[in-house]
């Protein structure tokens, strides 16, 4: 029977493939497994999946001279490394080796496809979160005025964590934070689950914290896919306190950033954000104080002025009052003086009149006018009864005459001496 050696068969297959196939094809496939060898070649497995079931598989290689450039460029474009699980569009040449069998040699990879693929996946996750009604939930929490008590999820060895702690512990104003680290793996397949676990630990003491900080950082810009994970994003969105992210990457925001309360680029930026918030609060306190000081001063000045103006008023009024009383008083004095003068004048007049009258009645004046005054025993003869022989004395102006009574008769003839 005619036969071929195995080598000849494989050779036939090889020739057939070479003649029948195009030099290369653009193929969409998922990277199944992947390893790099020391000499820089990359060996991988391309698979097709339908509902997580592998429906096609082929070995692939990227030779070192291609891989070096391709991997760097791919990372630069997509922000992530070529890695298992990644769906890629690659340009492959089918090869058949008599000893090693069928494989594809990857000559090029279209990074835009992966970007588009990721965008599609991200959109799916976002749509799902929006449909859940959780997408905006975390942003609904108000960040406390002074987020001073913080829980941090990070890897303790990450440079970003060190930067963050330095920043908040040595802030220039000397604010004190109560910060506690909850460790988690921050990159790779297990990162999302690890972060969720840490979030649950924080949740057990949630009343001790004002905010949750998720930081990563320094180091490579790759391996951010975990932050696009639906479960992680969903936990962040629904977290009962504000979540601040500082994942440390330059590319578009991850979904974790999108659902977080506040998204910052780096851990240092998170620290600055927290501190600036406290500075704002502190400044507000200062402003209150100066407003208080100002308005109290003003108020005291107003009161002072009121007091001194009351003082002036009082002085003015009393002066006026005194002046008017003085006037009244002196007016009264004048009146009294005048009245007194008048009174004395009247009295003087009366006295003068009386004096004249008295002068008129003076016995000496009577004598001068030619009358005499006759007395008996020194008494005026008025009701005295005179008898014969009584001696009477008569005084005229110039003489004193002594006589003896011969007889005396009452003028009305009733009595005789």
């Amino acid at each position, binding site marked *: 029977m005619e036969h071929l050696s195995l080598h000849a068969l494989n050779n036939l297959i090889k020739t057939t493939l070479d003649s029948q196939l195009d030099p290369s094809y653009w193929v969409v496939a998922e990277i199944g497994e992947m390893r790099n060898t020391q000499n820089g070649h990359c060996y991988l497995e391309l698979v097709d999946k339908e509902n997580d079931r592998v429906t096609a598989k082929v070995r692939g290689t990227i030779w070192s001279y291609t891989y070096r450039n391709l991997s760097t460029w791919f990372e630069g474009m997509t922000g992530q490394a070529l890695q298992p699980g990644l769906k890629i569009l690659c340009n492959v040449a089918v090869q058949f080796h008599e000893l090693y069998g069928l494989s594809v040699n990857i000559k090029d990879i279209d990074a835009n496809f992966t970007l588009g693929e990721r965008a599609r996946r991200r959109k799916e996750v976002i749509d799902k979160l929006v449909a859940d009604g959780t997408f905006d939930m975390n942003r609904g929490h108000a960040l*406390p*005025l*002074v987020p*001073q008590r913080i829980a*941090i999820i990070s890897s*303790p060895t990450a440079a970003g964590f060190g930067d963050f*702690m330095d920043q908040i*512990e040595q802030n220039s*104003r*000397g*604010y*004190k*934070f*109560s*910060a*506690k*680290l*909850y*460790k988690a793996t921050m990159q790779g397949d297990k990162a999302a689950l690890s972060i969720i676990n840490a979030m649950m*630990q924080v949740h057990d003491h949630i*009343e*001790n914290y004002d905010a949750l900080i998720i930081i990563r950082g320094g180091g490579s810009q790759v391996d951010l896919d975990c932050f696009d994970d639906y479960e992680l994003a969903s936990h962040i969105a629904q977290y009962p306190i504000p979540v601040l992210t500082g994942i440390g990457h330059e590319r578009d925001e991850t979904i974790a950033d999108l659902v977080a309360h506040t998204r910052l680029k780096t851990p240092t930026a998170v620290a600055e954000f927290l501190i600036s918030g*406290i500075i704002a*609060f*502190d400044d*507000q*306190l200062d402003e*209150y*104080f100066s*407003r*208080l000081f100002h*308005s*109290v001063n003003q*108020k*005291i000045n107003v*009161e002072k002025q009121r007091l001194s103006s009351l003082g002036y008023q009082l002085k003015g009024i009393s002066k006026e009052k005194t002046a008017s009383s003085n006037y009244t008083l002196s007016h009264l004095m004048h009146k009294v003086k005048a009245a007194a003068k008048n009174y004395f004048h009247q009295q003087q007049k009366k006295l003068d009149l009386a004096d004249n009258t008295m002068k008129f009645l003076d016995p000496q004046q009577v004598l001068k006018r030619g009358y005499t005054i006759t007395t008996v025993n020194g008494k005026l003869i008025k009701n005295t009864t005179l008898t014969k022989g009584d001696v009477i004395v008569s005084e005229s102006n110039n003489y004193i005459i002594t006589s003896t009574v011969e007889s005396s008769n009452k003028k009305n003839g009733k009595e005789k001496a």
Partner: protein
Amino acid sequence: MAKKKLSYKNAVEEIESIVDKIENGEPDVDELAELVKRAAGLIKECKVKLKGTEDSLSETLEELE
């Protein structure tokens, strides 16, 4: 929130209301002294708390793996 000696939010609300009250000239001089004392006290308390002199803190890097 666990029992806190002073809530920044409550403190600020009270300070603000006192400042407003004084600026709008409501209180008389006797009342003023009390209000100013209260507001200044609250401001000081907040500032002390910011500098953390009342708490001891920063218990980082412990806790489980």
